[in-house]
Structure formats: structure tokens, C-alpha cells
């Protein structure tokens, strides 16, 4: 189903979200209010240092906010007793620097998140194989990351983010380390996931061309949201 319309259910709700580093010396988020709905494709833009990555990390529960509220499907993440399960099952995170484990093959990297599921070992391998096939890497499954190109590494990372069937993808400049050809391929891959599987997608990018494929563009500066183009239709048909 190729839809870019936002569903009604609120996936994320941030209320006065703040994040400080170094005992308050750095204020990365200075009070962010935000709602993201099921099936949205939100692009976050802004200058370097404006707090985009920090916001994404809060959404992915990779760190704790300093203050404010962050709800996932109506439930506070801070009060959640099992953030590991949240990271493992609900969220797929894609990093600019890929962050694959260097001592494991592509196939093994994709299986890593599956350790937090009850899926039998043999099945994990089959599923990882399918996921790698879906990103066009069936011929490279036994390669170590160091033997893969940047684009291929990011494809492994995408397969990994889908390992446990995440309904939300958080991507932090996923094409930032890639040449334009690979970047185009990776973008298509991610956008297709959003479209075809109704995955909610939040992507940090500095590429306005990419941002225009989103259903909504949020601009940040100095830890604030300065514009939120909610409802602005996507430039992509």
C-alpha cells in the first residue's frame, strides 16, 4: 500500500523534551514538543550541532532525556521497565557510520538483534538471509564489513534494523557517508520500506532533496524546533 498519509495513532509524543550534556554545559535539546503519527515520514533538518542526532537518540531510547516527557504509543519511555525490548522489537536504528560489528559477517550482523527473541537459531539464519536478499546482498552474506563497500554496509545495517520487524525506523543521515549513486539506492530502499510496509520513518538529513520526499519536514536550530511542516505534502508522487 503506497500511502504517505499519516495514521491517527500517535507513535511518539515529546513534551518539553530537554537533553543536557556535561552537567548542563551543553544544551543539545532545549524543550522540544513533537508528535509523530503512525506511517509518517518525518525528515529532520538543521545545521550541524542543532540537536538532530540527540533528538533521534531520545526517540530510540539510546539515551535518557534530562527532563520532559517522551511517550511511545501513549506510554512513557522513561517509566518503561524494559528499554532493551523496546530497542530490539519496536525500533530500527540506522546510523550514518553504519555501526556494524567488525568481527561478524553480514549474515551474522543481521542476526545479532534476534538474540533478544525466542526465534530458533536455524530460523534466525533463514530470516537474516531473506532480509539480506531483500536489500540485494544475497551474494555478500559471508563477507565481513571491512570487505564491503559503504553502500553495501548500509544495506546490511538496514537489514539488521528490520531483523525483529520494527514498526519505526530511525535513520541518522543514512546516506551521509555515501557517494550519490549509493545514496540514491539506499534512500530508495528506506523510502520503499516506509511506503510498502507502512513503517513510520524519522530521518535526519541535511539533503533538502531527500527531505522533500518526506511527508513532513522539521527544522531544528540550537536545540529547538524552529519550523514543522506538518501536513506539507510530499514532493514525491
Amino acid at each position, binding site marked *: 500500500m503506497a500511502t504517505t498519509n499519516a495514521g491517527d495513532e500517535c507513535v511518539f509524543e515529546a513534551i518539553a523534551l530537554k537533553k543536557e550534556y556535561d552537567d548542563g554545559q551543553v544544551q543539545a535539546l532545549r524543550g522540544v514538543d513533537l508528535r509523530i503519527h503512525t506511517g509518517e515520514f518525518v525528515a529532520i533538518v538543521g545545521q550541524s550541532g542543532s540537536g538532530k542526532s540527540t533528538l533521534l537518540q531520545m526517540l530510540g531510547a539510546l539515551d535518557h532525556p534530562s527532563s520532559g516527557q517522551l511517550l511511545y504509543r501513549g506510554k512513557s519511555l522513561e517509566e518503561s521497565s524494559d528499554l*532493551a525490548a*523496546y530497542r530490539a522489537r519496536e525500533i530500527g536504528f540506522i546510523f*550514518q*557510520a553504519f*555501526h556494524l560489528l567488525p*568481527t*561478524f559477517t553480514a549474515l551474522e550482523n543481521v542476526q545479532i538483534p534476534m538474540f533478544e527473541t525466542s526465534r530458533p*537459531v536455524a530460523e*534466525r539464519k533463514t530470516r537474516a538471509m531473506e532480509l539480506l536478499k531483500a536489500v540485494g546482498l544475497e551474494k555478500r552474506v559471508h563477507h565481513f564489513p571491512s570487505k564491503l563497500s559503504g553502500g553495501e554496509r548500509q544495506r546490511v545495517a538496514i537489514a539488521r534494523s528490520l531483523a525483529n520487524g520494527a514498526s519505526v525506523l530511525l535513520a541518522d543521515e543514512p546516506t551521509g557517508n555515501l557517494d550519490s549513486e549509493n545514496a540514491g539506492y539506499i534512500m530508495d530502499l528506506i523510502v520503499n520500506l516506509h511506503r510498502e510496509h507502512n513503517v513510520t520513518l524519522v530521518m535526519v538529513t541535511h539533503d533538502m532533496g531527500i527531505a522533500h520526499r518526506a511527508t513532513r519536514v522539521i527544522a531544528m536550530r540550537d536545540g529547538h524546533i524552529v519550523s514543522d511542516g506538518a501536513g506539507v505534502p510530499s514532493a514525491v508522487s
Partner: protein
Amino acid sequence: MTFLSIVSRGLMRRPVRTGLTMIGIAIGIAAVVALVGMSRGFQTSWTNGLKTRGTDIVVSNMGSALTPKPFAATQADKIKSLPHVAAICTLMVDLISVEKADMMIVSARQWGGFSWGNLKIVSGRLPKDEKEKAVVLGQTAADVLKKKVGDTLQLETDELQVVGIVDGGAIVENGSVILSLSLYQEITGNDGKINVIDLRMTPGTTKEEAAELTERINSLVPEAKAVSAGDNIRNSQGYRIINAMSWGTSLLAVLVGVLGVMNTMLMTVFERRQEICILLAVGWRRGRVVRMILWESALLGFLGGIGGVVLGVIGVKILITAPAIKGLLEPDLNAVLLAQAVVISVVVGVISGLYPGWRSSRLMPSQALHG
């Protein structure tokens, strides 16, 4: 891919460091195996020696030395006619240097006593009488001293004739120079002195009766202590010191291994900070990360332990061929000791992994993944 393959991959990423750490722990474990195996071997060899002599109770004063303190031979007369005593044999047992051997067991036995009974003649004969200036040698002793029947042996200042080579049935017996008690007393100027009484009980003596007998002996002969043959050496202070020292020394070596494993695991956690953050970011529970670290260090300990056992056993086999030790003891490398050594090593591994594991569990996934 199983959890164990993740664990072993962690160790394989730095094969040289893993190997060196394993060698470190293996040396410690080898020390445990060798030292404890030798000191236990000393005990079992001694006990076996007593058993083949047919001794049920040993009366001696095992002070802090390895050989018992001498006392008057007349004390034996008090014991002779006690109930349940079948026979006694007085001895003077010494550990002295004989010719080129630094440590040799000299076992001087009451002429006609039962302790001669177990000696099987391999060549030659036993002494003709208690005054003949003659010795018989256990097979290993003959080997170590390079003597055969007809040679002379210098004992203290006297020249004695080697008249026989015997098989004593136990390693201590075979490692001994055996001669008549009165001859040895004469040579050493220890007239009327003995330091061991071997006692054989009448058949069918119950445990309670044996205990009563030892108690009676202990009150009759206060300068010595009667113990059942099996307990004899274990109760000696000298043996206890050796045993404690061998454990102490080897555990010290193990401690060095612990520091090595701990250092390696800490380094591993530091240099894999980013990877641990990745594991946490994709949803691994902290407990699983800690378990990974603990399993890694346990596996390191296990492999080091296996290596140590092999090293220790080989080391001991080489060590006992050394002339200074040959014939004194048979190392006791039983399966329990070897298993104990491996268990110690695994425990060492787990303990060494605790702090690094705790460190890893305190990482926040965002910490190494910015950008």
C-alpha cells in the same frame, strides 16, 4: 549463530593477546597441578610404603621435620604386650645424603622384625645377621646410586657391602637403603634410639579397639604419637607445611594469572566500547552483555586451565626423573586434582570478568555511537 560463537569470536579477535593470557593462567594452573600433585604424591607414597610393610599403626613423633624425632627403643617394650598387638617392629628412618644422592631414605629395621617381610629379593640376598656390615637397596635406590650386588656403599663414615637388591612393592620402599637397625645405630652413634615403631594388629580388631589401643599407646609413650597408618603422614607438621606451601605457592601463581585475565578482559571492554554500545542499541539486554563478557573470561580460564593441566602433568613427569626426587615419591595426579585445577581456572576466569562485565553494563548505547 549461537551465543557461544559470539563468545568465542570475542576471544579470537585478538589471538595473540588471548594466547598470552591463556599461557599466563596455564602456568599458574600447572604450578597447582605440579606442586599439589607432588606433595600429595609424597603422602600417598609414604602411606603405600607403610601398607606394604604390613603396618596398621605407626608410633612416631612427626614434629616439624620431615623425619621423626628419635626416642628410646625401650619404649617399644611397653607396647609389645598390649591387647590387639600382633607384632611390632622398631625402626630408624632417616632422610640423608648418601654418596652422590642428596636425599635418600635410609630405613634401618629391627632384625627379624616383620618390616623385612615384604622385601622380595631381585638379586643377591638379605644380610646374614644383624651385625653383618651389609645393606640391601630398593630397586630405584640401586638405580639412583648406580650400585649392584657386590659394590660397596659409603654410609656416614662406614663402608658397607651391597648384598642384595630388593623389590619393596611401593615407591618409598624401592627408593630406600635398608639395613639392620642395630648396625645403623652403631654407625650413627644412636645406640638405643629409634624413631618409628611399626605395629601390626591382631586380625579382626575393630575400629573402636584400634582407637582404644592408640590412646593407650599415647599415654604410655608420651614422646611419640600413635596414628593409623593412613593418617600418619597427613598428621605430620612437616607434611602439612609442605602441603600448605605447595597450595600457597601455586595459588600465588594463579593470582598472577587472575591479574592477566582481568587485564585482558578490561582491555577488551575498553576497546570494544563501541561494539558493546551497538549491541545495546540493537536491543541487547545489559545482562546479556555482562554474560558475554563473563563467558568470554570463563572460556579463557577453561582453556588456560586445560593447558595448565597438560603443562603440569608433563612438567611433573619430567621432574620425577630428576635424580634428586627419583624414588622419593610418586606424584599423585589423580583425576580429582586435575578437575579441581580446571575448576579453579574457570572460577578465576569468571571472577576476573566480574569487574570488566560490570563496567560494560554501565555503558549507555548512545555513548559511542554519536553521529
